[in-house]
């Protein structure tokens, strides 16, 4: 009996803080929570900037004004948005299906490579035809590159996360191979590089920014409609939720996985075309430059909803552009933008927990 009495003591008190389920928040409540999380993220970012020895208000101010102080600044900011937006939309298709496509980076590059072939070797074509051919080629290139992991997933159930991730390096080194070998610009002395595209193979400018932004905006609408109202979009959502249910409903799951990954990769490929033919005007190894990974964050923050993705792309572009200005003005490392992005991601994703759960503190004097 003594031992039991001891055990009883050991059994301990009610924990000070425990997690309990709450009623699911309303749409409005959830929105407020997310805005709150965002403000908290800014506050945490401010502490980080303070620790580096800068005035956070000043830095935030510069980041904002850096993106909007002139028409040129805005144009530069929009230019940053284009590949990020398009590839985030591409990833969204795969993610809706719960196919973890981490290979946007590689698909962007493949799209750019396919388009560059026409830009470099067929630039005698009429301008509109050439641009169209380049876009289609980029779409097919990215799509085929997305199809590879999808095929192996459907056939052998390979892990798509690792598979797409590794394909990124294959794509990157394909550019290196082309740059150092067959596509090397003979007229460029010194370091090997690929020739600059002719004006004929360059995307036109609209309001001072390459036309990629129009493609991006069109895609926002197209993807939103596709996911919500089309049969194929419906199939994607069902497959993402439960493959067993999809098969039960008579869907051909393999076909849907292949088709969706082709589209997903294809759209990422278009992002590559825009970057190469609109911004870089050549094919460089930096054509993707990590955009494919940032796109994952953006797609996720935007809850895989095209309009929200547009919003977060805008926000990330401001942060990116603004922090380069902060670097030139105050010498704040541009890597700080990545840290701030990380902080925001942490807070916004972290707040999802509070949509369903809450902390309950032990009431005083219960015992």
């Amino acid at each position, binding site marked *: 009996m003594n031992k039991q009495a001891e055990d009883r003591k050991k059994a301990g*008190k009610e924990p000070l803080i425990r997690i309990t389920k709450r009623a699911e928040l309303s749409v409005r409540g959830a929105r407020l929570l997310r805005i709150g999380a965002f403000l908290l993220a800014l506050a945490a970012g401010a502490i980080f900037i303070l620790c580096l020895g800068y005035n956070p208000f000043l830095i935030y101010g510069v980041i904002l004004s850096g993106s909007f102080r002139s028409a040129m600044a805005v144009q530069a900011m929009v230019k940053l948005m284009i590949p990020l937006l398009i590839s985030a939309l591409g990833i969204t298709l795969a993610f809706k299906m719960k196919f973890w496509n981490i290979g946007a980076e590689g698909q962007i590059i493949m799209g750019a490579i396919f388009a560059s072939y026409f830009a470099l070797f067929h630039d005698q074509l009429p301008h509109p035809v050439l641009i169209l051919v380049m876009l289609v080629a980029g779409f097919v290139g990215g799509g085929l590159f997305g199809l590879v992991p999808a095929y192996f997933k459907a056939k052998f159930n390979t892990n798509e996360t690792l598979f797409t991730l590794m394909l990124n390096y294959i794509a990157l080194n394909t550019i290196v191979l082309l740059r150092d070998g067959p596509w090397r610009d003979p007229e460029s002395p010194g370091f090997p590089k690929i020739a600059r595209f002719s004006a004929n193979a360059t995307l036109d400018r609209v309001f001072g920014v390459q036309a990629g932004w129009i493609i991006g905006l069109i895609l926002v609408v197209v993807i939103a409609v596709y996911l919500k109202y089309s049969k194929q979009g419906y199939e994607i*959502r069902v497959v993402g939720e439960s493959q067993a249910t999809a098969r039960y409903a008579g869907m051909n799951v393999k076909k849907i996985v292949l088709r969706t990954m082709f589209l997903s990769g294809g759209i990422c490929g278009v992002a590559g075309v825009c970057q190469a033919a609109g911004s870089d005007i050549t094919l460089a190894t930096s054509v993707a430059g990590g955009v494919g990974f940032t796109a994952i964050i953006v797609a996720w923050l935007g809850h895989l909803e095209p309009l929200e993705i547009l919003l977060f792309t805008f926000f990330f572009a401001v942060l990116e552009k603004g922090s380069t200005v902060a670097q030139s003005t105050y010498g704040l490392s541009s890597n700080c933008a990545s840290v701030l992005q990380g902080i925001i991601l942490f807070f916004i994703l972290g707040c999802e927990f509070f949509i369903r759960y809450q902390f309950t503190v032990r009431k005083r004097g219960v015992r």
Partner: protein
Amino acid sequence: MEKTQENSCAIQCQGIRKVFGTVVANDNIDLEVRYGEILALLGENGSGKTTLMNMLSGIYHPDEGRILIDGQQVDISCPTDAMRLGIGMIHQHFKLVDVFSAMDNIVLGTEEKKIKPKILRQKILDISHQFGLEVDPDKKIRQMSVSEKQTVEILKVLYRGARILILDEPTAVLTPQETEKLFAILRSMREQGAAIIIISHKLHEVMDISDRVTILRKGKSIETVNTAETNEKALTEKMVGRPVTLEIERPQTEKHERILDVYHLTVEREDGTTALDDVSFTINTGEILGVAGVAGSGQKELCESIAGLMPVKEGAILHKKQDIIRKTPSEIIELGISMSFVPEDRLGMGLVASMGMTDNMLLKTYHRGKGPFIDRKPNRELAERLVKELEIVTPDVETPVRLMSGGNVQKVLLGREIESDPNLLITAYPVRGLDINSSYLIYDLLNEQKKKQVAILFIGEDLDVLLELSDRIMVLCHGQITGIVDAKEVTKEQIGLMMTGSRAEEVLGNE
């Protein structure tokens, strides 16, 4: 277990309250269990039985109220606390490591130092003899039958010195014979002074095993009665809150035509084991063919192979004299074969959890309309009609079905299948997790279809229901048919024997 403790209070719960979000799962519950007695906790699904037991075993923490063990107030904040206090819970879904032996599973997680296998084996055997349990300590869990696994679960808590046992619907997966065996064990524990709480909604079992019954309804403790002084009808009324009739109709139908012939069907699972072994039977129109069997006897594979979701190794399935084995699931749907299969998690197959009713209505018909876009309007109307006709409770037809209660989810699923005007309806466990009222509504729905000359393959769990609802009962055991019998001329015990492998001829011949 000391004799002196007999008849003293083991557990007292006073004014327990637990809220999940807006759902009040437990509200002001009082409960008392003594040593040397078996208390049955009776209540419909969603009445808060499991929540209450989870608080006793340290999984949840009550928001209000006190728990007293041996007359002293305690706080149980984790399962280890519960164990220390001598409370052992046996869950409905076993929590065992498949590749370990019984012995390894029993000592897993105990705090004592490693014991030599020889001594441990003896210790386990000693405990099993004390209570009349049969177990082979070296047998691997994955080679065990369901009832053997349950024995290991019981040994696990006894080994840890539990004097208070909680069993959550322990008979749900057992045959009648296995249930008897379990009850014998529980009675022997009671003799030795243990306090036992058994959660159940099977009334005859409650009458059979318990000394007292505490009835929960909608999260409140309604009453505690001595089992000897009550009967099944009175208990049901207390549980449901109003008088109910407990009879299931079995309407007679006129025409019986063969609609599905299954010939020598053999199906292998992905891991190469045989799921169905040379199975042959027929289903007629206007008939309910019940399928009985211990869980995992091939029911799932039978459903899936008819629906075209599983490759068939040998044999043929003829639907109106047409072989459907090579057909794709969508071709089979077009033939009018409808399957509503509800696996353990209910939403795993058949419904998309995060979508509302409207989008779930679309699941099997979305591809029919012309053009690349889906037309939600007729489906929203269908959803709204189902809500009215089947009395489905949901705030809105766009509310994700995962937020709906089990009974309503089943109604959505079955309602959609019936709407597709099938000629063969395959339904598995359609009343799993439903309260009595909803269950009877589902039986009525099935009978209505039967009257419309639909053939129904009904995979069931509760033998009493199978006996009352079906016209014929087919019994599966390890993927083989042990008999197809007339439901009016067979007893539950006979079905039970067939479920464990006896042939119908032997079972019926002996009578």
